[in-house]
């Protein structure tokens, strides 16, 4: 459900950008999406088709670059991704800390005709 307002923002922001640059057709929108955000790719695609109708964005491909959250082990210092039900370091089994990565949600670029 909360992807609705996010998709609205994407459509509005890219439409503004297209207008500013006199672009008639946006063919692709490149989005960076962190693993920790609660946003789901498929829902954004679903809303996008409905919301972009009648804009230069209609029919544009949505490309998501996923960013995984990264943790740093407090003991051995290795950088690692999480397991399903654990945040422990897969190398030595100690606890780690979250590095500021995985919270991204931004429009990186657009492809236009």
């Amino acid at each position, binding site marked *: 459900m909360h992807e609705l307002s996010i998709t609205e923002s994407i459509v509005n922001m*890219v439409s503004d950008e297209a207008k500013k640059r006199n672009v008639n057709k946006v063919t692709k929108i490149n989005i960076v999406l962190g693993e*920790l955000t609660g946003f789901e790719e498929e829902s954004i695609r679903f809303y996008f088709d409905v919301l972009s109708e009648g804009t230069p964005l209609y029919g544009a491909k949505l490309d998501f670059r996923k960013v995984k959250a990264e943790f740093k082990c407090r003991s051995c210092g290795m950088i690692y991704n999480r397991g399903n039900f654990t945040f422990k370091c897969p190398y030595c089994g100690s*606890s780690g800390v*979250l590095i500021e990565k995985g919270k991204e*949600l931004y429009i990186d670029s657009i*492809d236009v*005709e």
Partner: protein
Amino acid sequence: MEIKIIKDVLEANNNIAEENKSIKDERKIMMVNIIGSPGTGKTSFILKLIENMDIPCGVIEGDVASDIDARKMAERNIPVVQINTGGACHLNANSINKALSTLDFEGGILFIENIGNLICPSDFELGEDFKLAMANVAEGDDKPYKYPLLFSKAKAVVINKIDLLPYFDFNKQYFYDGVKTLNDEAEIFEVSARTGEGFEVLAKWLKKKYSEYVQGK
């Protein structure tokens, strides 16, 4: 042709959140965004907490529908505004902006009871001073692992219904480890809104945060 944009999708919301921050700072309000699942006990928690506070407190109640929670606050003469989102699963900065304009309150702590949900409310900044994440013994010890964004952003984490500990397999160590991995600075409090256990400690901490907030202004 590719055009670089690099713009935060939540920019519009974040701009209004910044505006909310100035509005509430002018009124010397410390704003706490309370996020937890439905039934975790957010309303009872707020009521019990306010009983333990000796500084003015107000509440913004967010619900999909109804004013049941707001009435509970109003019965106790707590300044309150109800927001009904009509289906939306989170409060956004705009709804808080409107609520702030109708709420007659200044010089104290304003609790925002967000929509019962551990996912969506974590993404939307409201202009709050900090987030308080709420879990409870009955819903299990795996919440930090399943909803990492919330616990990574919260300054305070509350485990409610702590009186139920003897009846559930809630592994406190597992819960604490999860929170500390995501957020080393989070303060964790164990409370029971039913028995009142743990509220004295939490109220003391909040009062300290409020006086730091006022001194910082």
